[in-house]
């Protein structure tokens, strides 16, 4: 007989779930340079990512977040918030959910969409930064079609994941 069943998720995910990094303290989003919000409470998943950006280099200096979400959403956004620090806006925009999942050592199939959420919120925050700074031309639109209305998740996201 096997003694202990392994955790539902990887150890890495468990670590980030137990002590999530960069949770936004307080409620004041005004002190950030970009704010992105995805999902909604009715669907059981919501994510907000806020970023601080060095205007000269376009490097992300801080990334914080809040979520109404499950263990995968919490852990994947925690790890994502670590990954983007020091990256340029452009580099950060192109981090794929797949890379996030890889960092976590894999995710169960039915949980992939949860990691997509953090990624989408980050992209929304980056776009928000561009809009706020009059760089509307830099705003990147998602090309793919939305296949999950409720999560605003696209077929593109799923493939990426």
């Amino acid at each position, binding site marked *: 007989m096997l003694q202990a069943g392994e955790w539902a998720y990887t150890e890495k995910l468990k670590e980030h779930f137990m002590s999530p990094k960069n949770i936004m303290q307080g409620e004041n989003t005004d002190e950030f340079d970009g704010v992105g919000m995805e999902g909604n409470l009715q669907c059981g998943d919501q994510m*907000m990512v806020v970023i601080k950006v060095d205007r000269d280099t376009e490097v992300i200096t801080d990334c914080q977040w809040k979520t109404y979400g499950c263990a995968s959403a919490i852990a994947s956004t925690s790890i994502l918030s670590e990954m983007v620090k020091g990256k340029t806006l452009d580099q950060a925009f192109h981090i794929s959910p797949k890379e996030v999942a890889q960092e976590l050592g894999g995710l169960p199939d039915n949980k992939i969409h949860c990691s997509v959420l953090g990624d989408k919120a980050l992209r929304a925050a980056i776009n928000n930064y561009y809009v706020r700074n009059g760089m509307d031309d830099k705003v990147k639109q998602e090309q793919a079609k939305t296949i999950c209305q409720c999560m605003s998740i696209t077929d593109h996201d799923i493939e990426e994941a």
Partner: protein
Amino acid sequence: MKVYFDNNATTPLHPEVKKELIEAMGMFGNPSSMHAWGREARANVEDARSRVAGFIGAHDDEIVFVGSGSEANNTVLSLFVCASNQCIPGTKMRSSIITTKIEHPCVLETSECLAHRGARVKYLNVDRYGKVDLDQLAGMLGDDVGLVSVMMANNEIGTLQDIATISKMVHECGALMHTDAVQAVGKIPVDVAALGVDFLTISAHKIYGPKGVGALYVKKGIPYCPFIRGGHQERGRRAGTENTLGILGLGKAVEMRQLEMEAEEKRLASMKAILKKGIEERIDDIYFNGHPTDSLSGTLNVSFPGAEGEAILLYLDLEGIAVSTGSACASGSLDPSHVLLATGVDAERAHGSIRISLGRESTMQEVEYMLDILPKTIKRIRDMSTAYIKGGTHAASR
């Protein structure tokens, strides 16, 4: 501390059931065999049947042993879709079925499949406490209705239905009555005559018996056709070599329930009251789901808006506490509980709910530990929740 508060999902074996199983392991005959080994197994299976029958006020030959509560429910529903009815000579089943929106998936999914196969299936609404709408039932009942299936106690919120009243209405229109009593038998008194049901489902593993065995009560004289076919086992009503160990375990589990149920349910009720009061006092912005009084004494379902259910479950798990979100068998599904939605709870509150289900091994120390850990856990999750930020849904309530 290790705290198992998920007794509606499944229960530990009763120590007496363990003993019985260990003792019975040498008894290996096939109850269908005519020789000594077979007769020994047969005698023990029949003894278990008597205990189960006695516990719910049935005759011995009204009890069919099956492989699970799910199988029992599938068996009953499936009686109503045969295109030929060759197995039940002389009976033409009526082809409409009525059930409720809060049934266990094994009833709901089977109903959906039957609908594909030509049955008409209607689903009863429930009120905000999870009670079936009897007026709606009265309106639905008619000449075409063959079967009404209403669960006795709900697994997620614990709400009890008035099966006796429903049976009466159902019989008046000439239909048959089934109740899934998996969560009720062994927790509240169940007497098939008083309930007036034609079919009733029991599962052993919810009452400290083994998993993979259940019983179906089939009232004498009611048209019946086996679901699993072959062999003459169970008087031709369920094929497959009898799960002798499982059946003996169920018999013993029922015997122990008979001895312990009454006192224990009182104990659970008082523990639940303490748990409820403690949660109310220590955590704000909460909602209890299910009926405030007509409910299983060990079941407490509570919503914490702004905190997601799976996150609560897993943070509690890290502290050694087992609870569930919705029903165990729905885990893996991302949809909010169909039961909570049916009671009119909005999706967010449904997503943020957990079920705490106490059992015979639960202690007051465990309740206290839970009351220590749960508030911290909810705070922790709410602190990182978007639902509580400025402009978030619950910002005002803070």
